[in-house]
């Protein structure tokens, strides 16, 4: 197992290196650079001043030199400075991380809490009215964009109750109630869509597992339904579900841009888009690398979970 984990980490390192090159080059292929943006906000461009600014920021150097310099700084823990705000990049990113993390965790939590039981119930009650209702609800979840659902929720809240969650971030340590009110709704909006996917996968794999001989044997032995379904069948059906949960979580961190915008949450995703628009290279590069690390670690965690879910799976042995 240790050898397996080590190999996966090495592969992860190579993946991240490739990602770093890709994001570095892609950002510089986009038209304009940060100096264009600075002058954009001033409403004019002075070429002489612009070249001077480029030299100050070090972006007049050849791209490979810029890349090597950035990589070196990154590996030594120096995330650089935000070109736009002239602040250390970490100082700009740090307060936004808990916002996106809380939203992603809540969204994932809702998606699992809604999707897995719904999938199980739908499989067990296959062909019955409850199955159809749950499948229609999951179809609705797949069809409705989460940002649209979020806008509808806000509209309904303001029209019916005359209130909406706070427009500025409330930390759970300052006011847990206000924080939960602020995050539950977007969490639900995003989680609902994810739960639809999870529900369908769960239902599908449960239907397969419920046909297995060992399940029939368990029924024949007179086991209780809850034990057969939730302990025997679900555990064996959970591998694809766990895979999907891992993938969803990885996408959530960087994919919440519109939800964060609609609910005015100052998270990483929304800020990443802003940073791309103003070509704030250090912020974009560091955030994308962060998301890449999350994705890689999430996938590794999922793979390791397999060994617990299915003891027949062993890594590192022929």
């Amino acid at each position, binding site marked *: 197992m240790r050898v397996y984990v080590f190999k996966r980490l090495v592969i992860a390192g190579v993946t991240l290196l490739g990602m770093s090159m890709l994001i570095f080059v892609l950002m510089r292929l986009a038209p304009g650079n940060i100096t264009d943006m600075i002058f954009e906000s001033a*409403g004019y*461009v002075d070429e002489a001043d612009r070249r001077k600014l480029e030299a100050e920021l070090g972006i007049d150097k050849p791209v490979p030199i810029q890349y090597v310099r950035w990589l070196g700084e990154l590996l030594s823990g120096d995330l650089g400075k935000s070109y736009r*705000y002239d*602040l250390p990049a970490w100082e700009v990113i740090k307060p936004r991380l808990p916002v996106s993390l809380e939203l992603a965790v809540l969204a994932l939590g809702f998606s699992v809490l809604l999707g897995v039981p719904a999938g199980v119930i739908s499989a067990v009650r296959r062909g019955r009215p409850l199955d159809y209702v749950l499948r229609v609800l999951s179809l609705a979840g797949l069809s409705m964009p989460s940002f649209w659902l979020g806008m509808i929720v806000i509209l309904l809240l*303001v029209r019916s109750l*005359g209130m909406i969650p706070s427009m*500025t971030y409330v930390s759970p340590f300052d006011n847990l109630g206000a924080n939960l009110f602020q995050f539950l709704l977007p969490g639900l909006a995003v989680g609902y869509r994810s739960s639809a996917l999870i529900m369908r996968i769960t239902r599908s794999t449960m239907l397969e597992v419920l046909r297995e001989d060992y399940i029939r044997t368990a029924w024949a032995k007179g086991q209780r339904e809850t034990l057969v379904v939730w302990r025997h069948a679900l555990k064996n059906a959970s591998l694809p579900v766990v895979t999907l949960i891992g993938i969803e979580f990885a996408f959530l961190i960087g994919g919440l841009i519109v939800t964060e915008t609609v609910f*005015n949450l*100052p998270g990483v995703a929304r800020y990443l888009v802003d940073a791309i628009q103003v070509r704030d290279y250090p912020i974009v590069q560091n955030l994308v690398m962060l998301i890449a690390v999350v994705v890689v670690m999430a996938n590794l965690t999922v793979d390791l979970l397999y060994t617990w879910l299915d003891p027949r799976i062993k890594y590192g042995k022929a």
Partner: protein
Amino acid sequence: MTLSRPLVLLVFLLVVAWPGAPVPAQTPAAPTPKYGGVLVTHPLSATPSLSPHEESTVATTQQASPCFNNLIYYDPAKKQESVDTIIPELAERWSWQDGHRNLVFFLRRDVKWHDGKPFTSADVKYTFDGVRGAPDAKAKLKVNPRKLWYENVDAIEAPDPYTVVFRLKKPQPSLLPMLASGYSPVYPAHVPLAEFKNKCIGTGPFKLKENKPGEYVEYVKNPDYFIKGRPYLDGIKFIVIRDRSTQIAAVQSGQLDVAGTGWNRTNAEDAKGGAPKLVVVETDSNVNDNILINFKKPPFNDRRIRQAINLALDRKAYLVGPRQGAATFGGALLPRPAGVWGLPVAEVAKLAGMGDPAKQKAEARKLLAEAGYGPSNPLKFTLSTRALPIYVDTASWMVDQLQQVGIETTLEQIETGVWHPKMTRLEYSVALNLTGIGIDDPDAQLFENYRCGSQRNFSGYCSEEIDRLMVEQSQTTDPKKRLALVNEIDRKLQADGARPILGWGKQHWVLWPHVKNWVTHENSIYNISRRQDVWLDK
């Protein structure tokens, strides 16, 4: 027959005492402002910095003006800004001398910066030497969008701590309005310029409490403000909300006291529809939709092509369509009555695009035919615009209008970050643009946007005659003569199709009734954000 005195007295008493007798109308007493409360609103967008001298967006003047003062400012209480509505701020009084060649300011002596240090003439010299790009300036601005405003300033002297003299190369009455602009605050000489990226040390009615870039800017009352009894508010908070529907929901729910910056009429009506107690304010603004035609790129250097494009755009349809009924028409300067320098109303009605649309479109086709374009050889080009809804809406309408005269266009949306660089480099054929003018003043508008070689002359338009007239009007101190010159320039610009103006949009604000003294100016959106007189009736 004359009435006896007792009879007159009797009649008088009967009239006054009779129930239902008319009572002389009494002007209701103005409510007494209350102290306290934090006003919450949203800005147009996140501000790139808190340094107005280095930015050109109203988002900065909105969020930085509460922190600063100018030497002089436009009176918030007067709806139309003009040289007659300029009031003292850091300067107690001022005096033009030597035939408008020297402008002397006598400064207040009781002003402190927010860090407690005293304000003196050295701060004024430091600020404006930096802005005008003086060779020995201690302040070096990274970007300097309004350097042009001060190019006529030859030197700035501070003979004593409370006197400043602006020495001009030539007379320039416009210097006074420029110094009153929200873009012209005074900076402290003892604070490095770089700090204004995210902080603010000013003399203004509010002190910066917290700036979370991209999220909000929050101010608290300055207890040592030099105008006693001001501000009324305990603080102001600007929350950045990107999504328009979220802005509307936020004001309806009461989380925002005031909203509306960047809104159109429909947004304001939607907000009020969901919260009927909201008050909607609609006024003129100094922001226009204009067409950039690349003078340097054939065939647009052909006057007939430019005229045809201009004639094809029916202004009445523009008013109904993209502007939803909220716009006015004029030339290069904001039209009267909101603007001071605009062309007479009767003349505006005769500008290209204002007449009968069928006739004007027929004339457009004729001009195109003369230039060699017609149904078998249509004029084709890319119409560029900025990738923002307010631009795209109008540009889409333009595509349709041009198609009606046989011009085939493809709409290109340019990402906002590279918009000005592309325009500066003339990397376009025809573009739909929005321009907000910092002050309703000919020097600000004309030199920036129409002078040969100006960085913001995005059309590449150049006329020596216009340049000469611009300089002449800039030095003319008689207001009537100056207005005549400005109007003459405006006529020529419209005839040349220098930067055809589609119309001047209106601004909309939505506020709760408890917000008092939230004033707007009808000829600028940039010079009104000090907010020291705003109070909350709750």
